């Protein structure tokens, strides 16, 4: 029986269990609901949980464990001539056998007979059925494939029986436990709690998994490139990972990329912070409810624009505009009509990224400013301070730690931003200070190193993981610091 059908049947079993449990609890209570410890719904759910969850757990464990066990059986059945060639050959043979096993099921009895007797070429027959094989089929492989099929079928049958048995047993166990004083609600709630914990741990475990995989790839990178030449190298010249020429040593200096990243983020923040902050002050303190009601959502729409759209806005509009205006300016001043701002430049990328960041700054700051207690405003206004004096001397100082936290969160977004810089910042890894020239960022280089046809063994590709984890650490610390500051600020009014 196939897996989704099994799951469906288990769910039906759960439904039956629910109805049974509920009915049974009602009949036990003898129509007097208050005699029951929990409401009938909980008894029903209790039975359903016992019917569904243990059997599903067994099902998933089986689905994961059985193939591993079968593979090891098949592997050990291979002749020594294969096993002696090392694990790579063994795995390859195993893979071929597995696809052969899938293919054999499509053959008629005669074709199979022909293949076995050696009169027909199995590889060609299978190819004609749309199942490609990596290598010629050898007799022992056909045998292995057949035993693979047999084992899989047995395993599946056993699994179906066991899973259903557990489901039914679970349901029976649960129904038997139902009684007047049985605490079904507490049990059900414990299962729900476990579900909630599971959900939150999935997110955390995923993070741990991502970090772990990045770390392991990074370690591999540092085996071929020394850490100090990565972290302190000032030249980024990875070369190409030409096939078979893994020895081609490039230079993987992080400094120019990091400089570009921070420079562009700085330009973006220089633009976004004042604009966003002033917008927030206007929204929180001056705007009438009507204006606030319309302008705030509009500003927040800006946050919903995909960054790739900002990217080509930069590429198609802002970049050429800056280039042309610099040409005109240069011409007017010196008479020499040559642009001094490149279309792809730190300024272009920073400016557009700044626009992207405005809603983050304004929205976060607005929340923080409105959180300042009304009593502060009243106290200041009651002393005859004007609105702007109140904002400057009372509200902003009180909100400052929170605003700084918000800005740090925004900065970590700026550092991690990818699409805008890919399109607008350029790809030349240069260490320089002119904002009108292109620079490149860590994220751009990750994209560059990972696009195309790759093998994940050369330092040219592995460096992406080292870059990724560096970026991750930077943003992580920015976020932690920001949260620390925001939390410290909260304590002031509680």
């Amino acid at each position, binding site marked *: 029986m196939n897996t989704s059908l099994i799951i469906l049947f288990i769910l039906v079993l759960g439904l039956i269990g629910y109805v049974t449990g509920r009915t049974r609890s009602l009949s036990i209570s003898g129509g007097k609901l208050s005699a029951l410890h929990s409401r009938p719904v909980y008894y029903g759910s209790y039975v359903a949980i016992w019917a569904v969850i243990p059997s599903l757990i067994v099902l998933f464990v089986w689905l994961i464990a059985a193939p591993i066990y079968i593979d090891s059986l098949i592997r050990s059945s291979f002749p020594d001539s294969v096993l002696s060639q090392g694990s790579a050959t063994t795995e390859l043979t195993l893979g071929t056998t597995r696809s052969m096993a899938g293919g054999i099921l499509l053959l008629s009895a005669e074709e199979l007979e022909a293949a076995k007797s050696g009169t027909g070429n199995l590889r060609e027959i299978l190819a004609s059925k749309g199942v490609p094989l990596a290598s010629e089929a050898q007799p022992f492989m056909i045998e292995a494939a057949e035993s693979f099929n047999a084992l899989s079928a047995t395993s599946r049958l056993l699994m179906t029986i066991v899973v259903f048995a557990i489901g039914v047993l679970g349901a029976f166990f649960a129904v038997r436990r139902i009684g007047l004083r049985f605490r079904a609600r507490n049990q059900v709630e414990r299962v729900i709690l476990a579900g909630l914990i599971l959900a939150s741990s999935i997110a955390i475990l995923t993070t741990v998994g991502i970090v772990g995989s990045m770390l392991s790839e990074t370690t591999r990178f540092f085996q071929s490139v020394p850490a100090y030449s990565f972290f302190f190298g000032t030249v980024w010249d990875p070369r190409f990972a030409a096939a078979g020429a893994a020895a081609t040593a490039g230079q993987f200096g992080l400094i120019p990329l990091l400089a570009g990243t921070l420079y562009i983020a700085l330009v973006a923040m220089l633009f976004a912070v004042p604009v966003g902050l002033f917008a927030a002050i206007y929204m929180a303190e001056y705007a*009438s*409810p009507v204006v606030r009601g319309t302008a705030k959502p509009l500003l927040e729409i800006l946050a919903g624009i995909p960054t790739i759209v900002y990217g080509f806005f930069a590429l198609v509009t802002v970049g050429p505009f800056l280039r042309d205006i610099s040409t005109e300016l240069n011409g007017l001043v010196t008479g020499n009509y040559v642009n001094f701002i490149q279309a792809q430049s730190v300024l272009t990328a920073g400016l557009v990224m700044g626009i992207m960041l405005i809603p983050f700054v304004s929205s976060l700051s607005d929340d923080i400013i409105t959180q300042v*207690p009304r*009593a*502060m*405003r*009243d*106290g*200041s*206004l*009651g*002393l*005859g*301070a*004007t609105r702007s*004096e109140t904002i400057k*001397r*009372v509200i902003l*100082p*009180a909100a400052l730690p929170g605003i700084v936290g918000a800005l740090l969160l925004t900065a970590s977004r700026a550092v991690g931003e990818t699409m805008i810089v890919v399109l607008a910042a350029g790809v030349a890894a240069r260490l320089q200070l002119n904002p009108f020239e292109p620079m490149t960022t860590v994220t751009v280089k990750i994209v560059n190193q990972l696009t195309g046809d790759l093998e994940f063994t050369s330092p040219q590709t592995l460096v992406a993981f080292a870059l990724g984890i560096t970026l991750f650490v930077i943003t992580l610390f920015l976020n932690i610091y920001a949260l620390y500051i925001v939390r410290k600020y909260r304590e*002031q009014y509680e």
Partner: protein
Amino acid sequence: MNMMSEAAVEKALDKKMNDVSFKMIGKDVSVYYGAKRALFDVNLNVRQNTVTALIGPSGCGKSTFLRCLNRMNDTIDSCRVTGKITLDDGDIYDPSIDVVELRARVGMVFQKPNPFPKSIYENVAYGPRIHGLARNKAEMDQIVETSLQRAGLWNEAKDRLQEPGTGLSGGQQQRLCIARAVAVSPEVILMDEPCSALDPIATAKVEELIHELRANFTIVIVTHSMQQAARVSQRTAMFHLGNLVEENDTDKMFTNPDDQRTQDYIMGRFG
């Protein structure tokens, strides 16, 4: 100061009060919050160098009236005030009046102590700074010291002027807020239930302070405590459902009120 002279001062003040010079005059004051009317044609005058207590059950409009006196209601968007309120014969709702200047003359102390998250010194210096009352550091120091002394906080705070005002106890914070209001040298101080968040000991200190402040300021205080009104005020006004029920000398009010509703409220029969 011995007992005799203190009594003499009291007497002099009472005499001044009996001269009946009105510091603020409210005529037909009505307040609307959106479509809801909160005050109905209130006519209430505030006498010079007098503590006037506003009493009445919750929601009767006494705080609303208080907030009209320095136009704090302006900060509420839906609020509308009609009628006329004068301060020394000047209409405070006149368009030519600068609300900032008005609030410098009519200070306010709020229900919950609301010191700014700054040092004690900066809290008191806040008002003088924005109004430019001190020309140099020495003058500012002087203003801060005088104000804290007037608020009875100097002895407790003089060694910790640079510590945050939020670190004081509730009663000290409220006295800091009074010092902050006094530092601007207002003519009138409005107090909106200044003791409702304080314990009895702190309350006693603030009440004593109110009593002393009367010599230099005109005070209007909203309170829920009958005893407090009786203790600190010379004139009492009773509000009910947005109307001014009665306004009279405090002594008379608590012994022989003109209006049955005042009698009932003071006796605790409603409210």
